[in-house]
């Protein structure tokens, strides 16, 4: 397809304009965390703080136990993502590779989860957690995130498994591998991009959710970052530079993880999810 020079230029302008729109608020958030309250009030648009100061971060570190929040968020996100990935990959392998009377029904059963907002079941869920002795425990969050992340992950991984040729497995089997060996040694390495997709999607969800920790976690020492930030908003609602510093610190780890895994992630989405 050929396009005129003008058309081509317009395409570039559009593509990079949307890049600006996507990034501007994020950069503004980071820049504002280095400004003073007065600078934010008088010049909310500027991306360059007039004086670069880390005082706000020092103060933030003093007023909230940010290190605790961070550790809790990491623990919850990593554990949930691990469980989701392992459980969903096993289920997807079964659904994609074996055909029984109930396979279709089972697949549909998992897909239903995509359509249900789990918040609808908050009260029964709370009673269940209480009976399991998991109130005010990070495990309540891990189990909820794992359960609610399974549908989309099974969906993505099943799709991906189906794109892999059966011949590979047949060959492995002829070499004497059993199901578990086929799954673990032959297939898992092949679906790495799809796994990256599943990891990122679920990591984003577990890292950013504020609703469940709000309800299930009561002790300060167990709060995750988003809930910790909500407390910060309540107590320092007019100290904008402090709030921006908090927002920045809460977003940075996620951005870091994403940048590290982004190549695999994009590959996973574009190669597997909707082929």
């Amino acid at each position, binding site marked *: 397809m050929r396009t005129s020079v003008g058309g081509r230029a317009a395409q570039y302008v559009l593509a990079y304009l949307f890049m600006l729109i996507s990034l501007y608020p994020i950069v503004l958030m980071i820049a504002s965390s280095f400004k003073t309250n007065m600078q934010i009030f008088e010049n909310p648009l500027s991306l360059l703080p007039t004086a670069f100061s880390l005082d706000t971060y020092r103060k933030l570190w003093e007023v909230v136990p940010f290190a605790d929040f961070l550790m809790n968020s990491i623990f919850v996100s990593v554990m949930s993502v691990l469980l989701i990935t392992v459980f969903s990959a*096993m289920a997807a392998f079964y659904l994609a590779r074996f055909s029984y009377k109930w396979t279709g029904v089972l697949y549909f059963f998992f897909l239903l989860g*995509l359509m*249900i907002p*789990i918040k609808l*079941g908050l009260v029964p869920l709370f009673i269940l957690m209480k009976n399991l002795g998991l109130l005010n425990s990070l495990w309540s969050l891990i189990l909820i995130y794992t359960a609610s992340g399974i549908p989309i992950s099974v969906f993505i991984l*099943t799709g991906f498994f189906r794109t892999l040729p059966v011949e590979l497995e047949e060959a492995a089997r002829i070499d004497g591998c059993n199901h578990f060996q086929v*799954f673990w040694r032959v297939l898992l390495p092949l679906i790495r991009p799809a796994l990256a997709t599943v990891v990122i999607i679920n990591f984003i969800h577990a890292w950013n959710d504020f609703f469940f920790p709000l309800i299930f976690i009561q002790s300060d020492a167990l709060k995750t970052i988003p809930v910790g930030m909500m407390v910060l908003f309540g107590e320092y609602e007019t100290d904008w530079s402090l709030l921006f510093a908090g927002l920045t610190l809460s977003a940075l780890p996620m951005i870091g993880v994403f940048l590290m895994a982004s*190549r695999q992630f994009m590959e996973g989405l*574009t190669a597997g999810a909707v082929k």
Partner: protein
Amino acid sequence: MGVISTFERPTIRPKGRARWLIHLFPIPALIVYGLFVVYPIISAFLYSLYDWDGIKRGVFVGLKNFVTLFTVEPFNEMFWNAFGHNVYYFIIEMIVQNGIAFGLAFLIYRKIRGSSFLKIAYFMPRLLSVIVIGFLWKLILNPNYGALNTLLTKIGLEEWAKPWLGDPDTALLAIILINCWFGIGFAMLIFLAGLQSIPEELIEAARLDGARGISLLWKIILPLCMPSITIMTIFTFIQAFEAFELVYAMQGSMGEPFRSTDTLAVYFYRLAFSSAGGAGDVSVGLGSALAVVLFFIVASVSALSLYLMRKREVQH
């Protein structure tokens, strides 16, 4: 389109002594999902059959809550008001988010310099917590010192400056557009996947037949992208009908101003949990009835689109 259809693909017949072991594979996922998603939801659905005013369960009343929800003021008014907003949410997201996302995906598909950087940039907003997004955009949209109105004033468009989130004509739209900002990166990647899966030969062949520009896009590329478009449509539909967190973070649970940002999920939250404090204004029964209705709307529309898509695929 392996994701949706194709149970017809060649599958493996398990052999050998340990054949039953294969059935253990889906068990862990099934148990966790069953226990922490399906069981609470089914319990919540059962609540809809009880007279449950306040926070103590009363007697079994059958479908009375459903009748109340659709026939008694102000419950029915609030339902249709919120329902309309969900439909609006879906339409705007389809046009703005998915429209722009498809355009950007097409640009990247046609090879643009810096595309791997652009892909990351578009996806970036998706990484932020709703808490962060709500706070950030509330500051940007603040009527008196927010960045947007400041910008409009600076470039001489002062009369465009508005109390965006306080005006019922713009509040919901502003929230939906923020949601689009948030979701464009993901939609773009899904569309890109669709575009990249089109075999080159097909496009070449069409071009030899004389298809150019718009007609090539319209007659060849779009139809071939239908699977990814359908999937994104379903995702968008589910998302629009379950819209809660962003609305809640920016406007609270009352759908303010003047119920102009109320959605079904926010309405559910208001019915199931108190907004005045205490138990007087809570109705778990009504809230659960609303949840059941919401579920059937989402499930039936999604299932129908999947069915239609699969049917079309079979015809091809």
